[in-house]
């Protein structure tokens, strides 16, 4: 066993625990023991071997080693693969050198996974690019996280200190219970406290006389009529006169702060009045519109009530203290180069819904947006399951942040190559709808039950370790068994599904499918995430491309922000991911947004022969460049990006077949890609058509500044056009 760091449980009184299995369970386990082979060396098991998952030789060796170290700590057996030298995914700071974990967080023990580094698909970086808002994508094992993906972002410190690292991703709904089980969520464990806060607020005089509201009303009316060109109505003049009289009447008795506010508003009136005069002819879009004026605010200290965790002694041992609060988002600042800075604290507030702030100890914290909180509030659909792990100031915390996912009962190790193929197969089954074949469908069902069967096997091996555990320890013990079972079962599950898919598609065997052109289980890295390909398209991309003839994929962009896309991320990024990247502040989401939750996680392209517009447009003349991905779905019509039947939308007509997409007829068709599209890498468009020469110049300037000379294989000045 590798070093593995902390042991899951200490000083357990050892006495064999009775394990009661039905005869059917025993037979099933025996079958799968033989199926899996020795869990240490992979040797097929003979009759009489395998009661503990080991062949005779390994069992003898284990017995000999028993006095040295008998405890397994959540490793990732390879089930059938020869034993290999394993090494821990090393935290940036060895656990032994970390400061003592305070309070209850420190009492929480979680398994440190061991894994052969050569098997890792995406090593966890210790040196992500600081300030890169797109972040460094990585993939973790298991199926706890959406797409098994996380993104590590290292912000520049807003105060010039060490960088601030944040790891984020979305927890799958099926795994949410794991996170919630780790938390002290009982509302009774939260206590109200009054705290003072410095806020910027409007002056009472302003609010009492609704001065800002009066300015807003006048400005709205004036702009409306300037835009229509039908003259400013008399009542708007009257409103302005009334406002001016109010301000004049208040001025003499006002305090200094109030006079400053009144002066600001008088300045606004002076700006508005000329635009109301007959004959004013400044074009609305060229300086005619009254610019925005924020309410006048001053710094004030207020007392507010917050719910905070109860004193540590009231938190049950083994659980993490968690605070419920209104949803927030990290609030970084972007410089002119698109580099992000954050001070580790500043957050956008009142983003809609509720979230938990979780103390992980040692300066680490997590933020989780659950489907339902202990108080019955939910995060909004697009944000549900969103998880942040925030490290203490400084660089190199990536591996430790991944490791600490274990505190939340989530799989906390990088994805192995074996898992990558499992994920690849799952993506391809979904993309190609292979589960419509009865054989594939039944194999998928059988594969799911394999986890449970192997879990029983693992439990039979380790049941004696459970003696003397309290309830919390038992719960964690059960979870560690489940994780180990999933890892042990994975190679066999992959083999089963690959074989079933191969049979359905007419291949001689699963191995023949694996050796076929286009079959590549390794994901491709794009900007801030990974994508898997679908092997039906990748096997013969020219055939797919030919189906489209002269038709292209395209996406129309608000014209004045094309350069910003390249400045900030170099990607066309889905709204929700742009928000968490901090490219723009996320705004509160109300009930109305639930229906578009699917839409906030995808970008929407169309297929056809688009006409020119005033705005900008990205064009992919070779649709296969994008359609080879295994994460898109499409409709020949606008379904508001519905990914599933939710909120009343039908998914009738949803297709993932490139041949059907090529024949789409409606101009409101939609082809929806998860996360976004890498505009400067392997998914670069063939043409970026700008709405004006100045837009084109801006885009070219940004690309040149970033050292990008080609998009795809073509020079940027050939790709970026007007």
């Amino acid at each position, binding site marked *: 066993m590798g070093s593995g760091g902390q042991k899951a449980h200490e000083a357990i009184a050892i006495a064999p625990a009775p394990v009661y299995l039905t005869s059917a369970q025993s037979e099933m386990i025996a079958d799968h023991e033989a199926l899996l082979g020795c869990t240490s060396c992979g040797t097929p098991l003979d009759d009489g071997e395998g009661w503990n998952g080991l062949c005779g030789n390994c069992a003898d060796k284990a017995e000999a080693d028993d006095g040295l170290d008998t405890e397994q700590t959540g490793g990732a057996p390879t089930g059938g693969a020869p034993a290999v030298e394993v090494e821990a995914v090393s935290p940036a700071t060895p656990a032994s050198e970390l400061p003592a974990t305070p309070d209850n967080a420190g009492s929480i023990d979680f398994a440190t996974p061991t894994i052969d580094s050569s098997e890792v698909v995406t090593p966890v970086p210790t040196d992500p690019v600081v300030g890169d808002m797109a972040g460094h994508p990585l993939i973790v094992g298991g199926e706890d996280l959406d797409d098994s993906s996380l993104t590590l972002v290292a912000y520049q410190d807003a105060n010039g200190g060490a960088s601030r690292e944040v790891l984020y991703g979305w927890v799958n709904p099926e795994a949410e219970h794991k996170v919630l089980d780790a938390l002290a969520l009982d509302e009774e464990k939260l206590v109200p406290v009054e705290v003072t806060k410095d806020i910027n607020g409007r002056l009472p005089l302003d609010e009492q006389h609704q001065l800002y509201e009066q300015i807003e009303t006048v*400005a709205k009316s004036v702009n409306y009529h300037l835009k229509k060109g039908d003259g400013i109505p008399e009542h708007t003049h009257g409103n302005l006169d009334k406002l001016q009289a109010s301000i004049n009447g208040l001025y003499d008795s006002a305090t200094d702060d109030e006079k400053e506010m009144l002066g600001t508003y008088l300045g606004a009136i002076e700006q508005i009045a000329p635009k109301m005069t007959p004959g004013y002819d400044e074009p609305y879009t060229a300086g005619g519109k009254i610019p925005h004026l924020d309410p006048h605010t001053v710094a004030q200290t207020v007392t507010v009530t917050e719910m905070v965790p109860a004193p540590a002694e009231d938190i049950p041992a083994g659980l993490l203290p968690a605070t419920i609060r209104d949803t927030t988002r990290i609030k970084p600042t972007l410089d002119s180069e698109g580099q992000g800075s954050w001070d580790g604290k500043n957050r956008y507030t009142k983003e809609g819904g509720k979230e938990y702030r979780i103390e992980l100890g040692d300066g680490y914290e997590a933020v989780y947006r659950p489907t339902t909180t202990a108080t019955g509030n939910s995060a909004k659909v697009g944000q549900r399951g969103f998880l942040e792990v925030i490290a203490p100031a400084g660089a190199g915390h990536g591996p430790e942040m991944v490791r600490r996912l274990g505190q939340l009962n989530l799989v906390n190790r990088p994805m192995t190559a074996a898992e990558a193929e499992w994920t690849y197969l799952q993506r391809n089954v979904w993309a190609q709808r292979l589960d419509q074949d009865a054989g594939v469908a039944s194999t998928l069902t059988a594969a799911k039950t394999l986890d449970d069967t192997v879990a029983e096997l693992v439990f039979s091996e380790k049941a004696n370790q459970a003696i003397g555990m309290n309830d919390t320890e038992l719960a964690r013990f059960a979870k560690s068994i489940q994780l180990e079972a999933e890892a042990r079962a994975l190679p066999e599950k992959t083999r089963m599904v690959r074989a079933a898919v191969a049979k359905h598609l007419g291949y001689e065997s699963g191995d023949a499918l694996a050796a076929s052109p286009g079959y590549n289980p390794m994901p491709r890295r794009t900007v801030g995430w990974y994508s898997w390909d679908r092997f039906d398209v990748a096997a013969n991309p020219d055939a797919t491309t030919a189906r489209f003839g002269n038709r292209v994929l395209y996406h*129309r962009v608000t014209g004045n922000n094309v350069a910003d896309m390249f400045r900030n991320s170099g990607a066309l990024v889905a709204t929700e991911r742009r928000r968490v990247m901090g490219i723009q502040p996320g705004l509160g*989401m109300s009930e109305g947004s639930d229906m*578009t939750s699917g839409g906030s996680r995808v970008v929407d392209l169309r297929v056809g022969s688009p006409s020119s517009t005033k705005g900008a447009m990205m064009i992919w003349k070779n649709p296969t460049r994008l359609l080879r991905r295994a994460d898109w779905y499409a409709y020949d019509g606008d379904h508001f990006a519905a990914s599933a039947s939710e909120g009343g939308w039908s998914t009738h007509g949803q297709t993932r077949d490139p041949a059907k997409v090529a024949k789409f007829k*409606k101009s409101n068709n939609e082809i929806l890609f998860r996360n976004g599209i890498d505009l400067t890498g392997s998914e670069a468009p063939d043409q970026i058509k700008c709405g004006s020469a100045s837009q084109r110049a801006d885009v070219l300037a940004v690309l040149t500044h970033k050292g990008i000379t080609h998009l795809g294989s073509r020079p940027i000045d050939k790709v970026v056009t007007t």
Partner: protein
Amino acid sequence: MTHHGTLDHAVAELLEAGAVLGLVHPDGTAHAHSWPLARQHRIDDDVLWLRTLISGHRTPAGTPVFPLGDCLRRGIALDSYTVDANEIRFELGSGQVLELRPATSPRELETLELWDVFTLTVLTAQEEDDLDRLDADSWQGRFI
């Protein structure tokens, strides 16, 4: 440009007065969901383009804001529709029905009022123009 002249006129009138797009529940009894609509529309290629509004609110300082990344244009295919005095029904290829009707509830009316304040007093004229054109598939500017 369009042979949907009657529809064009009816939509314009409804939007000017304040309108809502409702997705009729599969059982036909009520709206499964509804969205207040920006006062802008465009018809081309037998598609009616509208902008659904979501999540408007005022910041603590009082400034109205909308997440424009969620207030996207939506295209309704004009294969089959009926224009009544106070309502337009669109039958979609999927078999579902959308209804364009006057805004009536306080929430709908408040959203429309806030949208007007937002577009007319917070956005720049250029941003307003970008929205009015209804030709972009995503919003890449401020207020995502």
